[in-house]
């Protein structure tokens, strides 16, 4: 018996190498429904982005110091002195934004293809929870550079939470660790961002992937009319689908690096609790809610802004139709696309509100509600 075979045998008796290898091979060669396309690489892309965020996050932690005195300076040091620190931070900052954008596209694909229907309701719920967790990452991570925008956006954000009737004040104090955003808030947000949320995300992603691998990707046939996969038309996970992913991942990573080079994230001015800057706005993914709250009385706005997340979470239990093809679910698809359009519109108005732009030579000013006003020349 060769030395290699003896070594393998020694390990096999102590660790089920063969069983693991066979399990992996089974998963790798699994057949996927024939309609699987480039759009189905979005899920894998999210896994790639999550890994990228964790890796760059660990590297950032080497230099970052979560105190109000040092946070801003440590980020500045990272950007200026640490080797490729600007690249790591750029990838992490842009990665956060792109992860949310890809998540939205992935959810849209699942929604339009009716992939959330029985028996995949919990896969959808898990996916929505991953989406909320990612938004949590965005909210907590935004404060960490401790600059003026992040400080005041967090102040506004926690104030919104604090205005919930009943539990609001306690919730505000719990989030901030006091009445105002300060050292306690930074410590809490940092702990959430680097310890609590990563574990939650990893757990949710494992659950999500396990459900996908055991139930396979949803076919396009209606619920109850699914046919067994035909090996002649089905797509193999490896090498057919993985070859698609191998096209997408490096291209996406190249795009990310290009974006970081062309639009490096700013560091801004260090947080100053005594100076409120003009035009405080949250990150783009919170802009629709931010804008909605401006139009409505506080209580009504808070109540109304809680409805879309709940609808999103419970949608598979509300849409009981059996059809999966979008052409057979016109009402459902119209509702979904309408809601998306409204969200994008609110976000756009939120982005433009309290700003000035020049369009076709005309200077236009938008008030806090996003109502445009042409500014006469010379003013």
């Amino acid at each position: 018996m060769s030395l290699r075979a003896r070594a393998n045998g020694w390990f096999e008796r102590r660790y089920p190498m063969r069983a693991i290898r066979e399990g992996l091979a089974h998963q790798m060669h699994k057949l996927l429904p024939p309609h699987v396309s480039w759009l189905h690489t979005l899920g894998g892309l999210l896994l790639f982005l999550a890994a990228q965020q964790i890796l760059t996050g660990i590297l950032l932690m080497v230099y970052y110091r979560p105190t109000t005195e040092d946070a801003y300076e440590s980020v500045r040091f990272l950007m200026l002195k640490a080797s490729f620190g600007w690249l790591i931070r750029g990838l992490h900052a842009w990665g956060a934004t792109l992860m949310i954008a890809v998540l939205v596209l992935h959810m849209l694909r699942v929604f339009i293809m009716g992939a959330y229907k029985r028996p995949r309701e919990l896969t959808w719920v898990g996916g929505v929870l991953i989406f909320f967790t990612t938004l949590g990452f965005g909210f907590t991570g935004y404060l960490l550079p401790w600059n003026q925008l992040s400080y005041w956006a967090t102040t506004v954000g926690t104030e919104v939470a604090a205005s919930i009737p009943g539990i609001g004040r306690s919730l505000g104090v719990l989030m901030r660790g006091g009445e105002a955003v300060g050292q306690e808030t930074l410590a809490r947000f940092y702990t959430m961002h680097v310890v609590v949320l990563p574990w939650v995300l990893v757990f949710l992603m494992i659950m999500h992937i396990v459900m996908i691998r055991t139930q396979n990707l949803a076919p396009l046939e209606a619920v109850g009319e699914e046919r067994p996969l035909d090996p002649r038309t089905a797509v193999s996970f490896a090498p057919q689908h993985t070859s698609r992913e191998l096209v997408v991942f490096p291209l996406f990573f190249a795009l990310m690096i290009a974006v970081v080079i062309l639009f490096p994230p700013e560091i801004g001015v260090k947080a100053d609790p005594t100076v409120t800057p003009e035009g405080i706005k949250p990150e783009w993914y919170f802009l629709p809610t931010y804008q909605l709250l401006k139009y409505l009385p506080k209580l009504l706005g808070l109540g109304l802004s809680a409805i879309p997340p709940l609808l999103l979470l419970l949608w598979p239990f509300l849409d009981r139709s059996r059809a999966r093809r979008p052409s057979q679910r016109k009402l459902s698809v119209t509702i979904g696309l309408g809601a998306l359009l409204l969200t994008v519109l609110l976000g756009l108005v939120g982005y433009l509100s309290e700003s000035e732009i020049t369009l076709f030579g005309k200077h236009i000013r938008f008030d806090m509600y996003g109502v445009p006003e042409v500014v006469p020349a010379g003013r």
Partner: protein
Amino acid sequence: MALFFALCAQTPAATTPNSCVACHAEIAKLEAGRAHAQAEIGCVACHGGDSAQAEKDAAHAASAGFSGKLGALATVELCGNCHADVARMNPYGLPTDQLAQYRTSRHGQGLFTDHDESGAICSSCHGAHGILGPKSSESPVHPTHVAQTCGKCHGDESLMTAHGLAATAPAAYAKSVHAQVLAKGDDSAPQCATCHGSHGAIPPGFGSVAAVCGKCHMREKELFQKSPHAPLVETGDFPGCIVCHSNHAIQPAEPRIFESVCGLCHGGTPEVLAKRDRIAGALNSSNELLAAREAELQAAAQHGLASDEDELFLDEARTGLKSARVLQHSLDPARVEEVTGEARGQLEALRLRLQKERDAQRWKRLALLPVVAFLILMSLGAWVRFRRLHSHA
């Protein structure tokens, strides 16, 4: 819990009944907790009468020494009775020269010499009831309220006209750089009393303006006294600081003063105007350079490309230019040019540092292009493999 609160509750001390409060409740409310009430100085101490009497006539009886509302002279003498008494004021650590100072003031001269009771007396500034110490932020003589207090009379056009004065000073002061600094919460900023005095309030004399301004602007005063203008102040031909800076409406000292003021006297002397142009030129061009570097550093800081050392270069230049602005009072162009030259040197060094940092960043970014190219090639390779697999399928 009840015990905790019970132990904290204070038992009110037994007090002598004061019947004045029955009718003058509003005044009693004003006095409560204020300086005189704390010192147990009651109504009778100032107004006479008998506070133990419940009937108004008996309480207000002339036989009980009731004097009622006091006239201006009586008020000043009454306040002075205590506040000029060293033995009485010592326990409170208060000065006792207010009455003596008041006698020397324009207000006091009007009252004591001209018997004019329309001028300011103690209560005009401190109030009659509910008097607070000057350190209290609510006091009318606290630095933040002095201009408003003086302005009650000095902004009253009919009253000032009767005294042959202009009523423009409070409004002019409100626009001044001093008022702006005070409004920002700096209690040490000059207000009326800083230049005119408080109890001994009097306009600074023609020759003493520089001395008054020089209390705070010491270096400017020192340089001014060595300048060609100084002897003219002695002879009464030049009013000093106010020529360029005015008096109440003092604006931030800007280089435009050179253009608007110097020519008024030196219009016909080109050699003096040439000196002026050298000083103004050195200051103006340095200020422009400073503003440009500040904007450049701010933009760099926004992208995390500015370090603490860069800030130090800017601070050094700012300090240099601040000192050059003071140095212009010497009217010596060579000295001003020397100091502004050093500041410009710091600004140039900063420009080179920022340029170097920008170049370094550009190279770091360009170095990543091969990585991007490699990733795109990888993707293309995978595409070729995908096409091959697809055609097989």
